[in-house]
């Protein structure tokens, strides 16, 4: 069995970090708040990776996001994936030059698959993370796009097939119904994935405590669990969650 991963997601909107509940955003704090309450710029942080998404509801300011990304990632020696509204190679390159190691795509999977092709050629498939936001509808999971404002006509299974044809290194799967609820991961969604999925899977949506993290990581189909719950893991919350998962027998790298 390979070592699993614990990932933290930061949702960014015009200079602020946000709490999301079913994709409705609430402002929590700025970079200074984040530094005081999490301090990702410390060696030996408790997470394997950080995902930073520009979910701005107003038109995005890419340059400003990248400047803040640089500040955020200074002295942070963990892998960073960034995205939100990536529509061009130049945009992706700017992210990679501002502290990101990987680029997250979402709407482009459906609207600009040719861009995803080019990004893969340019930066390698291992650099491309496909974010899939799913809504449950009559027992089916349907993919949405544009910060979940628009439904696609693809089921989760169809979307995975689209991703399989594209240079994509990871699937980052979120359940809109569970997003930000803290009620636990939507493990049922895993039954809607093809059995032979060979792309690493990050599951998120619903993590409220360390027990939920353990539940997700214990499932053999899940390679990583992510949480964007900005309030439940403040201070040493992430360290404690990690230690708890290790004590529960989950194979996570030991940073102590």
């Amino acid at each position, binding site marked *: 069995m*390979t*070592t*699993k*991963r614990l990932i933290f997601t930061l949702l960014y909107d015009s200079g602020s970090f946000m709490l999301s509940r079913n994709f409705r955003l609430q402002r929590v704090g700025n970079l200074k708040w984040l530094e005081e309450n999490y301090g990702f710029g410390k*060696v*030996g*942080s408790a997470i*394997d990776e950080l995902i930073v998404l520009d979910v701005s509801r107003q038109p995005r300011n890419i340059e400003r996001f990248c400047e803040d990304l*640089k500040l955020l*990632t*200074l*002295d*942070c*020696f*963990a*892998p*960073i994936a960034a995205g939100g509204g990536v529509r061009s190679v130049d945009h992706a*390159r700017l992210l*990679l*030059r*501002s*502290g*990101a*190691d*990987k680029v997250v795509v979402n709407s482009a999977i459906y609207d600009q698959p040719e861009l995803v092709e080019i990004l*893969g*050629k*340019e*930066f*390698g*498939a*291992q*650099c491309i993370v496909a974010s899939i936001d799913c809504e449950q509808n009559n027992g089916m999971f349907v993919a949405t796009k544009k910060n979940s404002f628009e439904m696609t006509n693809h089921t989760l299974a169809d979307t995975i097939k689209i991703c399989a044809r594209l240079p994509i*290194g*990871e699937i980052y799967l979120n359940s809109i119904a569970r997003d930000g609820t803290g009620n636990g991961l939507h493990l049922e969604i895993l039954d809607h994935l093809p059995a*032979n*999925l*060979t*792309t*690493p899977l990050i599951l998120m949506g619903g993590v409220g405590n360390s027990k939920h993290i353990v539940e997700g990581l214990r499932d053999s189909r899940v*390679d*990583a669990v992510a949480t964007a719950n900005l309030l439940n893991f403040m201070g040493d919350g992430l360290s404690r969650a990690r230690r708890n998962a290790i004590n529960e027998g989950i194979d996570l*790298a*030991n*940073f102590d």
Partner: protein
Amino acid sequence: MADRAVVIVDYGMGNLWSVASAVKHLGFEPIVSSDLESISTADTLILPGVGSFNRAMQTIRSSEIDKAIGEALHANEAKLLGICLGMQLLGKSSTEDGFSDGLGLVDNEVKKITSVSDQQVKIPNIGFREVQADEEMKIFGGLETRSQFYFVHSFCMQILDDRSKYAIAHHGQTFVAAIESGRVFGTQFHPEKSQKNGLKVLQNFLNL
């Protein structure tokens, strides 16, 4: 050029900021550059890497960065660290995106990760993996023999029985996690993304 200057080779594709940030954190002076003069006269070179082998080699050859690196190594006795794709580029060739020749600073070939058993493995190989290093390898000084480092790759360098020293890791197959051949070093893992262990490796290299 200042003693603590470290030239990070910019061929348009690396996670340059992360590498520069780690070098700076360790008290050295990162210079991100594609300038042939800066590269060829450097004492310490880092070849980072996020990207496709084929595309990287095309850029490196057309901009003559390969020649500048060669000059630094031979005329200037520089030391070089290739990271991730940067390590793979040190090799003889890769099958990523068709076949391409590498820099040929080591003879190892780069191929897609394959599972040697019936058990399928997920690709890319992502996450912290245990690395077993040859005890004589300078860049692992001060670390435990089975330390963990962060990997993210779909292709890997094959082990070749030659004069290089190796650290190995496993994912479906055994592959080169790090290599040392004279003044040429490479890590498949990202030292700049492997927290304390990674910074130690980077520091060991910079202090050589």
